[in-house]
């Protein structure tokens, strides 16, 4: 079962195609990280799935129910990208009210548990108007999960939060994942996405450029595995032959007497290089393998 499935989903504002025919499938129970530069169309995409805006064309289904569907809203939790809270309502009242709007009324104990989860238990009876930005963000996350939804949309859940709160929110997301919830989150924090998401989609100019697990994404970029090998000095008689062989194996970047750096297309090539050096009786002191970071993949995209 797919928690989210979109077919040719498109949103146009005037002549500007913000989301361009996106086909996406998110399996139940996974955390999908949605990356993209500002204006890439991430929030527009989430807003279409959550009923905030209507798609221009295409279709989507949430939890196997064709959207837009008002009944399915009870089973989804949404933390919109920008939203103001009602300044005159306390954190507790917010949660109770919004759960009731979802037709899933909750007890005070449940509200307190959720507020504890997001680290707002001491502010439970404070009015949201007096909250800091970070506290508002936490309350927005709390309201998204108060009614125990199966599918959770989090639009930049940790932006603007202090380091401690970010760790707290990451733990919370992991906890929700362990409970079998499907989480769809956008973020600008690449480390965060790399750390907690099971799959990552990178959006560019309204389209999904790359999508897959971190390993799959790296596989696209295997040519950029950079290997630096520190070794004993190479005899001058061996040097031209070895240099020639290395050129055939990968793209040589740097060759010094006791160290060289090379780009290879797969991990197997690293083993081949090590074996070749052994043949020439060269001792290997250190091998540094630099796989592409999400940041490099993202920037390349």
């Amino acid at each position, binding site marked *: 079962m797919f928690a989210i499935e979109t077919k040719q989903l498109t949103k146009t504002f005037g002549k500007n195609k913000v989301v361009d025919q996106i086909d996406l499938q998110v399996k139940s129970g996974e955390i999908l990280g949605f990356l993209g530069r500002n204006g890439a169309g991430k929030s527009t995409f989430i807003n279409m799935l959550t*009923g905030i*805006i209507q798609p221009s064309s295409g279709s989507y289904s949430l939890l196997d129910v064709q959207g837009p569907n008002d009944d399915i*809203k009870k089973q989804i939790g949404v933390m919109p990208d920008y939203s*103001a809270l009602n300044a005159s309502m306390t954190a507790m009242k917010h949660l109770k009210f919004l759960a009731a709007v*979802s*037709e899933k009324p909750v007890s005070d104990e449940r509200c307190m548990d959720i507020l504890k989860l997001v680290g707002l238990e001491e502010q439970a009876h404070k009015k949201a108007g007096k909250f800091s930005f970070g506290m508002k963000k936490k309350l927005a996350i709390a309201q998204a999960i108060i009614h125990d939804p199966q599918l959770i949309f989090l639009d930049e859940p940790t932006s603007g939060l202090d380091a401690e709160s970010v760790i707290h929110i990451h733990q919370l997301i992991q906890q929700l994942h362990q409970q079998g919830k499907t989480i769809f989150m956008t973020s600008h924090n690449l480390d965060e996405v790399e750390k907690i998401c099971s799959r990552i989609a990178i959006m560019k100019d309204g389209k999904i450029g790359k999508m897959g697990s971190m390993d799959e994404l790296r596989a696209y970029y295997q040519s950029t595995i950079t290997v630096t090998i520190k070794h004993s000095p190479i005899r001058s008689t061996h040097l031209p032959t070895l240099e020639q062989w290395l050129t055939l194996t990968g793209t040589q970047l740097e060759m010094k007497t006791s160290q060289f750096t090379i780009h290879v297309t797969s991990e197997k090539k690293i083993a081949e290089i090590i074996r070749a050096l052994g043949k020439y009786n060269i001792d290997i002191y250190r091998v540094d393998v630099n796989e592409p970071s999400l940041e490099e993949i993202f920037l390349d995209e």
Partner: protein
Amino acid sequence: MLAISKREFIESFKGIKPIIIIAIFLITAYYSGKFSDLLLSANIDFTAEELEGIHTIAISGLLIIFGMLFVMGLSHDTMNREMHERTIRFLVTRTSRSAIIIGKFLGIWFFWIVCLVTSFMVISIFVHKFDMITLFQATSLVAYYLALTILLSVLIPKPGFTMFLSIVLGIAFPIFNSWTVFTSNPWVSWMKYLLPFYYINDRNFYFVGILLLVGVILFIAIAIFNRREC
């Protein structure tokens, strides 16, 4: 829908404006009940129908002249404030848009029903009778004002503009509506069927017509809100 109605009902009592309006209604009801007998003792020829509603005429008059102003003054930003501040996003991601509009309508309407029933009860203390027909007409009239207010609040995104409009419409609406009822100009007269005063002109059940119009206005408001991006 029920949660939204409940919140709107409670929120309607908060602030200085509802307190002033409730006070105006209660004071009017008190003096209406207390002094309506003076009208009866004056040498004025009232029809039987007029005599029936004489005790509540002040409340009816208040609603006809200032009703639109009161309702719009209190609720002009019921939708656009939420859209402007984007608090609406918490609602549209949880329930249907029609439930939001109907929930808000019912919550505020119930506030007015409570105000009117209380006023009519104050009058009944003095005159020992409860004028049900006028109460139904009054609540229907308020429902019309409210539906129109919600429609404008969906149509106009800026709360500041609907506030300005509430004053202009509050003054112009009763004048224009009265004109449509009493004019013989056919170019204007047809509009009386779309406005509420025609249906409460006499003590009968024509007020049901107002409730039908309320349904149409809310339907239009929902249709527009369904296309609105929040």
